[in-house]
């Protein structure tokens, strides 16, 4: 039986990867995917904990996260398509009308 700490470490690593990707990637889609990665890391953590604690609600939370992530994905992709249509680039550094 693999101890749940392994899974937690994995989820932490995934989350960290997501953060790093979010900070360093320049393509909007990639950034968006990095966020999804973070959310899935969270899901992993939830499942692990609920397994560890012998409670079921953690897994129900995962359902919520998945659904919300899907809704976010829909909206996000819509926005990204909007941007892609108006300027022929998905590079965030080119999206700079508003000085950051």
């Amino acid at each position, binding site marked *: 039986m693999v101890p749940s700490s392994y899974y*937690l470490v994995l989820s932490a690593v995934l*989350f960290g990867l*997501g953060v790093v990707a*979010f900070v360093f990637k320049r393509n*909007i889609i990639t*950034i*968006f995917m990095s*966020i999804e990665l*973070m*959310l899935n*890391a*969270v899901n992993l*953590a*939830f499942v*692990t*904990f609920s397994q*560890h*604690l012998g*409670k079921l*609600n*953690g897994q129900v*939370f995962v359902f*919520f*996260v998945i659904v*919300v992530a899907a*809704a*976010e994905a829909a*909206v*996000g992709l*819509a*926005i*990204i398509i*909007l*941007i892609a249509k*108006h*300027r022929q680039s998905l590079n*965030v550094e080119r*999206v*700079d*009308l*508003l*000085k*950051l």
Partner: protein
Amino acid sequence: MFPPIQDIYRIAPELVACLFGMLIMVADPFVPRERKGAMGRLGLAGALGALVAVELMSRHAGAAMNGLLVVDSFSVFLHMIIYGAASLVVLASYDYLERENLQQGEFYALLFFATCGMGIMASATELMTVFVGLEISSIASYILACYRRAALKSHESAMKYFLLGSFATAFFLYGVAMVYGATGTTSLVAIRAAAAHATDHHMLLTLGFGMLFVGMAFKIAAAPFQVWTPDVYEGAPTPVTALLASGPKAAAFAVLLRIVFTAFGDASSTWFWIVWISAALTMVVGNFAAVAQSNVKRMLAYSSIAHAGYLLVAVAAAGAAGEESAAGIAAVLFYLVAYALMKVGAFTIVSHLGGSGEQRLEIDDYAGLSTRQPTTAACLALYLLSLLGLPLTAGFLGKVYIFQAALDAKLIWLVVIMAVTTVVGAFYYLRVIWVMYFREAQQDWTPAPVAPGVAAVMFLTAAGILALFFFPGPLMTFAAHSALSLR
């Protein structure tokens, strides 16, 4: 097995908001193009209905939905702020949508969904419920932010809001997961109980709180997580900006307060310094960055960052005060009301003056406004002076309450920083005023006559700001009472 009818009452505002949202959403395609005005009336009806529902809800205190939500005077207070602000925004946005000729129906529908989410946040006592409410409001506001489909700025603001917002959400969720792992529950009260003897998970708990705070700090635009604010506020359609500046901030503060005082009430030592540092940073960053702005919306955005800092000072004060945290929390609540009034009013005027396509957003565009539209100029001046915290305005008493709470908690340095940064605020607020009053307009431009909706918002907010100074008694007692209901 069915929930008692009281539960329905306890979520009445959310129900009303959702129902009207869906109603408008479905009705929109059926209503012919020329009769879209009906949407505005429907939206107004919904807003008023929601306010009535808040009143209904306030009569049925108690936990609802198996303890996912609670109706106490705290949540009632925040519902008042959130739904009040939403109603004002509905009033203000009708003419805006006409002018920009944008889809009426969807706007109001999304606005109602966003408001509903905020309402859930305000009365949630369970972290997953918070999360759901947060997402309902955020997703709706992402769409609202890019509502001006023609404007590139609008897309950009929506994109940044979306990316950074969901980034923050991920942090919040990870925090929830950690807290869940440490205590085996996500109900705030249970967390407090569990945290008391879950000493072996102390590390995990602290880390979890840190993550939760990051998520919240994004939403309340507290440094160092405030970068998105100016861009989003500038790019979003101005009525939406008005909503973003008032509603979500109030809701996020509600969540923050509930988390720190209900869940982590006993462990104020773990979060006090986080809040302290964030507050100081936020005040400094917000105020000093605002000085450099030439665009009114950006300036107001930075000023709202600064005000988040002031509110955090009160939170820190409440945390440091230990048992006597009520004063600080009451100060936060009172200030939130004043702040919502000021910001909604200010952004409404900005959207009115922006003209078609939001062309005129530079401070210099306001030159000579005092002669062109004296009333508008006077109202804007009032909001700015209130933001600055001069007497005769609600902002002054709000600052007094915060100062006092902080002093009682012996946070002298935080108070000094707040005082100094307040003076810095004089620079940029007064600049707008002198442009409006002392400068003659360069180009011959007369702003459009004030539309009835905008006029109503101006009147209500201005009256509210003055009234809160002269008769703060009732609201303050309510706030103090709500503060007590938090523990």
